[in-house]
């Protein structure tokens, strides 16, 4: 072992004092400048640890409580922050449906058109009578849904593991700039939507896994935007647990005609000439689960200004039908078999509950027939 070197004693650092000031005392304790700065002893941080443990217990307990179906059903639906209030409500009701039945056999996908057109409970009842099969259906139509959201939509639907996906076939597949989109933000761009597609964010994670956080978002909406919150409450009230959207409107009154939104042909921005969006949509949804199409009815009135658009749209509808046939997919057109007069419509593109009550059984009947003739293979008998 070598000799230890003796350390030279350190002289105190020179400090400047004012000349002749007489203030020779130093504020600096030099020797202690070399001492240890951090002197932590156990139990340092015990209070914080206790708090974090308490927080974890509280969170777990609250999340558990909020997921108890009896409690969950009593609370207003929490928000997802997608900006699309109909979607937020629909998603919550889908979870409650899964809580109740454990599964969903048939999912209706598309926009607000299908959301207003098909009443799942009625569909299940008629389908059961015609085919003898007892299935659980959910109307997963989303107001403002656009074909470019197919990827996200498919991800969500896949998680349900349905036996059949029924997609609407409507003008929205002809035009990405469809005017009906303008009030609805893209769900896939929201933190929640992005998280579903694999993009991580803390907010996305919280929205996906924490019901407490989603209720916190709802309370924030209550405080920050009463108008938006009132709308959210109305949508919650008007949406049934199976996803069907009821606005509670009766037959269209004469006066109401003046506030009908612009005719559907003016809602299309570009030329109707391509079915690329439809192909993209179907490609996205293709998989093990069979996908069928149901053509959405469009309001027609002879002798009125809306008759002209009907003629323009006949071309669009032919295009869609042709393309679906070419692909070999099944297309149901229940609207062609019934008369949907003006008392069945809320506006140019949405049926009202009366119209849905006429449309749904016919569709259920067509589907039951397709299954019995073997045209459509799905729903195992023992399900």
């Amino acid at each position, binding site marked *: 072992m070598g000799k230890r070197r003796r350390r030279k004693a350190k002289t105190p650092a020179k400090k400047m004092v004012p000349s002749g000031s007489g203030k020779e005392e130093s504020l600096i304790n030099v020797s202690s400048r070399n001492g240890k700065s*951090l002197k932590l002893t156990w139990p340092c941080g015990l209070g914080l640890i206790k708090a974090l443990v308490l927080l974890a217990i509280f969170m777990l307990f609250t999340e558990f409580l909020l997921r108890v179906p009896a409690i969950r059903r009593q609370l207003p639906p929490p928000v997802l922050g997608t900006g699309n209030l109909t979607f937020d409500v629909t998603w919550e009701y889908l979870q409650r449906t899964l809580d109740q039945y454990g599964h969903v056999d048939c999912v209706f996908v598309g926009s607000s058109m299908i959301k207003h057109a098909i009443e799942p409970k009625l569909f299940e009842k008629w389908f059961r009578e015609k085919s003898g099969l007892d299935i659980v259906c959910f109307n997963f139509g989303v107001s403002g849904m656009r074909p470019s959201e197919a990827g996200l939509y498919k991800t969500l639907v896949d998680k349900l593991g349905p036996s059949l996906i029924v997609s609407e076939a409507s003008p929205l597949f002809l035009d990405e700039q469809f005017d009906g989109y303008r009030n609805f933000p893209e769900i896939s761009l929201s933190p929640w939507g992005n998280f579903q597609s694999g993009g991580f964010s803390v907010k996305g994670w919280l929205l996906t896994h924490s019901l407490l956080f989603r209720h916190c978002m709802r309370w*924030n909406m209550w405080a920050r935007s009463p108008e938006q919150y009132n709308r959210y409450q109305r949508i919650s009230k008007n949406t049934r647990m199976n996803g069907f959207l009821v606005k509670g409107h009766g037959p269209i009154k004469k006066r109401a005609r003046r506030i009908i939104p612009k005719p559907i042909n003016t809602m299309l921005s570009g030329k109707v000439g391509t079915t690329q969006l439809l192909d993209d949509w179907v490609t996205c949804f293709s998989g093990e689960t069979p996908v069928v199409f149901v053509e959405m009815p469009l309001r027609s009135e002879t002798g009125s200004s809306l008759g002209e658009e009907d003629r323009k749209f006949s071309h669009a509808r032919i295009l869609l039908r042709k393309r679906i046939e070419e692909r070999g997919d099944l297309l149901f057109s229940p609207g062609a078999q019934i008369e949907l007069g003006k008392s069945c419509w809320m506006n140019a593109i949405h049926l009202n509950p009366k119209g849905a009550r006429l449309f749904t059984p016919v569709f259920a009947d067509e589907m039951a027939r397709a299954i019995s003739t073997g045209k459509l293979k799905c729903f195992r008998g023992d399900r």
Partner: protein
Amino acid sequence: MNLISGHFIFFVLAVLLFYYAVPRKSQNVLLVAASYLFYFSISLWFPLILIVVTVVTWLIAMQLFLKRQHRKTFFILALVFNLAILVVFKVHHFFVPQILSRLDMFGWQDQTLGLHILIPVGMSFYILQAISFVVDCYQGRLASFPGLMDFSLYLAYFPKLTAGPIERPGSFLPKLLKARTVDNEKIAKAFALLLIGLVRKIVVADPLLAAVPAGLFQDPGAYTAVQLISMTLLFGLGLYFDFSGYTDIVRGISGFFGIELSPNFRWPLFSKGISDFWNRWHISLSHWLRDNIFYPLTRMFLKKNIRSDNWKAVFIPPVVTMALSGFWHGTRAHFLVWGLIMGLLLAVERLWRVKVNPVRRIVPGTLRNMGSIVFTMGLIFACSIPFMVPLAKIVPYMKGVSKLNGLHAANFRIFVFLVPGLLIDLIQFRANDELVFMKWHSSFQAAAIAFAVLAVLFMSQVYVPGAFLYQGF
């Protein structure tokens, strides 16, 4: 680098790691390096200006400290240098666009003058600190003269660099120079301050400020009277919780380094008079102005006539002091108007004390106290409107308010976000102790921390934490 960001958290943790790894004598050097690194992350130019201010001020102050001759000359030189820098940046920021628009009217379009020179973040704060240092040197209040590194740290110390608090050399320099031991209690206090600050900022201020539309003060005609009043109130309260939150956060961060920063607020929402308010709001600035402007001016007038009814002494010092406060906040005319109004209020309050109510005993808990608080805050709010509304918009604003309409259109639910902030303030105020929570039973402490952490976590996701408003001054 935003103070509420992942980058800043990572930065602080990294600095702390190195801070406790290096010997004590190197800690100040490390902090200076870290502070400049932080400042460089905001802009490449701002630190260069700070370096110039630091070196020049230090050199001149050294002459003041060590020499007996020409002290007054050096003192004036140091003052002029620092004030010139501050005024040039503030005036340039204001006047150049005005000059350009006038020249443009005559067809002269030279864009070289239009370099948009921003006021460097933190300049308004560190210049005042530099001036304090020079004044203390001149008045012989410093026992020892700091080295350049320590003085650099005094000005550039990163937790307080962007928006204060404005520290005095007499109290702050010894903290930098003496041994710093951080023990359990200091860590706990630092954490408590940090958490309280985060609640004020993220849970209270951000939602309140997010509810104020960007065009409220630019286009007051678009809003009803009730909307104008309620949203102006939201803005004022949001500003308070934003700035007080900032102060608590930086004090907490600084506490982890063992360096205590001064408090900036003492529950101003419970002020019982105008001067009481200014002893509770932005204390570091108020006291700086009081000590360097108000006291000398008042003393000068009182020496001629010591009586309480010396009107010059009653009116001129507060009006000048608050006018300068207005100028410090901004060179636009409405800040000056605000300052003048506040100065007049202080003078009028003084008169009232002299003429009407010479003895006032404040008895806690009485109705009179509550009345004083409500009256004071109402007056402060009303007179703060020029602070928020540009002068050109004052008339449309007041016209809008005078319509007394729009009760149905206003959203009062937003005030629910005030509850946690007011609760914290009330508990601290009644105990006269900002860290009263540390005296609670450990179970209550744990519950309070848990709730605060949950609220901060959730609200930081609901609202994207914005920049602190006072960094704009």
